[in-house]
């Protein structure tokens, strides 16, 4: 417990608070960028993954939670219920960043795939019990298909997540890797987790 409190104090301080707010805003704005260039992906965790990498897992979790809170209050209430999923994404990204997955592109992709599976596991019960398997995320036809072939509602929500999330998260990890390689070293060195990049 003392270790968790100490980690929280270390990662959430005056220096990192604006970075966390930026990460939360980036999650929301990337959704707009994806719409502008008409990509069939969500990519709504890029800010969470970036902050988890350059600050730490607790900061990543907070970034995801605040992004979903803001999205929930101002755009679509459904996002509020998926805060536990963003916590999983933030924690996992922060932990794998420490072992250096964002230093090589070929390490980022498998980590993103595993992240996608974890996100699917975390989101399936929420999608099933809160929304009856329907989230209006563009992949609801998959739920319809899995229900039609006899899967239960939780299984259908999980399989739908499994079909969409790993690719989405692998692409997100790759984009974060490229972002980190293109940001100047002088800026990266000022970040608490620069060693992860």
């Amino acid at each position, binding site marked *: 417990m003392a270790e968790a409190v100490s980690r929280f104090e270390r990662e*959430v*301080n*005056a*220096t*990192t*608070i*604006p*970075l*966390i*707010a*930026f990460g*939360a*805003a*980036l999650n*929301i*704005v*990337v959704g*707009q*960028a*994806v719409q*502008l*260039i*008409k*990509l*069939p992906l969500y*990519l709504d965790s*890029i800010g969470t993954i970036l902050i988890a990498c350059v600050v730490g897992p607790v900061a990543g979790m*907070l970034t995801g939670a*605040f*992004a979903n*809170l*803001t999205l*929930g*209050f*101002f755009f*679509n*209430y*459904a996002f509020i219920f998926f805060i536990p999923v963003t916590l999983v994404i933030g924690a996992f990204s922060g932990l794998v960043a420490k072992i250096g997955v964002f230093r090589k592109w070929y390490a980022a992709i498998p980590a993103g795939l595993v992240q996608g599976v974890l996100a699917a596991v975390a989101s399936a019960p929420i999608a099933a019990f*809160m*929304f*009856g*398997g*329907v*989230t*209006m995320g563009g992949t*609801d036809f998959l*739920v*319809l298909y899995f*229900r*039609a072939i006899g899967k239960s*509602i939780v299984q259908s929500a999980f399989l739908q997540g499994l079909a969409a999330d790993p690719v989405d998260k692998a*692409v997100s990890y790759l*984009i974060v890797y490229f*972002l980190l390689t*293109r*940001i*100047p070293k002088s*800026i990266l060195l*000022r*970040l608490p987790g620069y060693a992860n990049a």
Partner: protein
Amino acid sequence: MPTPEILRRKYNPLDHYITLTVIFTAFAFKLEWQIVILAVLVAVTVFSTNRKRIYRGFLKFVLPLILIGFLINGLFFTGSIAFAVGPLKFKDQGLVFASAVAVRLTLIVIAISYYFSRVRSETMAEYLVAKGADRRFVYIYLLSVAMVHLMRDKLQKIYTAQSARGLDTTRNIFTRARYLLPMLVPLSYSYIAESLDRGTALRAAGFSDRKYSRLNAPVPIVQIEVNRRGLLEGRIILAAAICFWVLRLTKWL
């Protein structure tokens, strides 16, 4: 040293207690009671001056969700057939499940919409700080809301500039995916640098979670005037809902 002007904001806790009570009932109560509460809530909000704002979110996000939920769960649940429309056979168990989800979602969404139609997010944040919430959370929330609008404008400008340099959204998916980087790199670079500068400024100004840092002087700049009657009424409403739930659970009612 000049004394800062104190802004006074009014806050009625009845609003958040009503929202909390409705969300509690959405999870704790049975479907028939949820329908009763929903009917009361609709009756109250339909006469509200903010009714357009309250129901806009429901119609935009929740109604399509509910309709598709009825379709998927009605068609693919096992059980006896409730009714058929041509070749489509809707099962009773699926419709009951979809109804439970629909009522719960409607309750939650109308409750949250009601709250935000009555209370501005800044006032809510100030109230939370006055009640002892960690100032760092409130600051993150307010800053992220402000940044979203700024970043959207900047992204639009970057998109226009990149379009002028040949960004073509009609090309294949991999080429379009590559276009993300020329948009995200300048955006992230400038905002990370700005966030770091902002962090340095905050630290220099003595921002911390402690109660009396230099940015949280004993004399607050914003003073929240809490409606005490609303606080009492709100607590009674929430306590009544919890008591009712406990009594139903223990079969006293």
